[in-house]
């Protein structure tokens, strides 16, 4: 591995975004090339500055008491400990929850060279829903940066749903259709069969509480294919349909038990049906 390649790994590492495999390559390379440690330290400093863009939030006061009580009975690593275990390999019970996450372990100090335990059998689970509802970028950032940012960032950052919408709009077969909701609001489907993408933007959806959820469907011929679940938000709700849209699919929404229909088929009459052909 050359330094340039390592710099890419170090950047991804400092942002916590490497795959398990790349994390292992990163560790191996750093162990073999301690002279690259300054790259790691620079990236860690830079990434930590990104943290300063997030507004502080006071944790519940009771947490402080709990934590201080735990600290009083929790042993520390001795100062001369050989760091053979990863930071989270400590004995704190609470740490167990993140123990398999040490692939992401990284500090601008010796923690980086720890031969951390391999991530346990469980590789990080896939998160299809996270992608489905990936309304990331500016949504995430704007909230954090407050008023000034709210003015600047929306034009600069494109959240994933907007990326999807843009891709639809730019497709030669972009289309949209709006229907009224029983509750009085509206739902607009945007789609392009050529890129296989559909996004539903609705307003005035009723909140369902915790026991039920909205589920999206592509209705292909007579067969509904689940396209993920979503929750209503105050105001406008944007949800990208999971999976690939086919030409002629209808887009539908039903109300299902939390987590989605247990049978894989709609269990209620749809509240939205939008034909696309």
């Amino acid at each position, binding site marked *: 591995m050359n330094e340039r390649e390592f710099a890419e790994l170090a*950047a991804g590492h*400092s942002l*916590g*975004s490497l*795959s398990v495999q790349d994390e292992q390559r990163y560790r191996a390379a750093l162990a073999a090339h301690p002279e690259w440690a300054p790259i790691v330290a*620079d990236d*860690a*400093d*830079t990434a*930590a*500055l*990104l*943290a*300063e*863009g997030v*507004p502080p*939030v*006071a*944790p*519940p006061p009771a*947490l402080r008491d709990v*934590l*201080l009580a*735990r600290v009083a009975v929790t042993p*520390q690593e001795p100062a*001369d400990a050989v760091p053979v275990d990863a930071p*989270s390999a*400590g004995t*704190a019970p*609470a740490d167990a929850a*993140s123990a398999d*996450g040490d692939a*992401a*372990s990284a500090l*601008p*100090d*010796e923690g980086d060279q720890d031969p951390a335990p391999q991530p346990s059998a469980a590789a990080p*689970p896939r*998160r299809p*829903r*996270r*992608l489905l*509802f*990936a*309304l*990331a*970028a500016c*949504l*995430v*950032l704007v*909230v*954090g*940066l*407050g*008023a*000034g940012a709210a003015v600047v*960032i929306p034009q600069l*950052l494109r959240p994933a749903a907007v990326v999807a919408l843009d891709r639809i709009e730019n497709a030669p077969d972009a289309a949209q259709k709006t229907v009224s909701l029983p509750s009085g609001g509206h739902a607009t489907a945007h789609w392009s069969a050529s890129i296989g993408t559909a996004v539903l933007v609705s307003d005035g959806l009723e909140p369902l509480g915790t026991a039920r959820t909205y589920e999206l469907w592509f209705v292909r011929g007579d067969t509904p294919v689940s396209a993920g*679940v979503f929750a209503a*938000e105050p105001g406008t709700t944007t949800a990208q349909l999971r999976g690939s849209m086919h030409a002629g699919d209808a887009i539908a929404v039903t109300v299902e038990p939390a987590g989605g229909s247990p049978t894989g088929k709609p269990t209620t009459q749809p509240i939205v049906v939008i034909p696309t052909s």
Partner: protein
Amino acid sequence: MLEPMVIDDREHAEQDGGDDLASALLLRVAQGDQSAFAELYDMLSSRVFGLILRVLVNRSQSEEVLQEVFLEIWQTASRFTSDRGRGRTWILTIAHRRAVDRVRASQASADRDVRIGARDLDVAHDSVAEQAELSIDADRVVDALSALPDAQREALVLAYYGGYSQSEIATITGSPLGTVKTRMRDGLTRLRTHWGVNA
């Protein structure tokens, strides 16, 4: 017990303690000083919690991770050496890593997805209150991110604030994985230049 003062070019001190203070406290924590630990917690817990909450969204999970992070700081403070890094960076790095770990491992990722959208709608209400709290650093973050090419900014924001992996970002943005990796490296380099982080 005081470390030699280091003049930091970043002005954290006004808001929640300078980096040199965090480093000095960490060195005391490494000696088993519980009052130093309490002081460190009081100084940085809001900053750390804000970061965790941003990545994780779920509040109760964020509270758990906050505790994990500070317990880890307590247990491993001896690994922090003031000559090798900034205390504040050390702590924020642990916090971000643990938040991302939890996102990766968590069933709550579904919650997270549907709630991210809701947060956007709170901007209007919160922005006034938050404005008062914005530190000079937040302005610097906005300035620096705004100066990045769109694709680089998107990659950094999705990764750091969103907790998305490189392969997920490739999927979200419809870009090749290799391109995403390069964007992250180039984006960080530009931020560093912008901020003058390089020693």
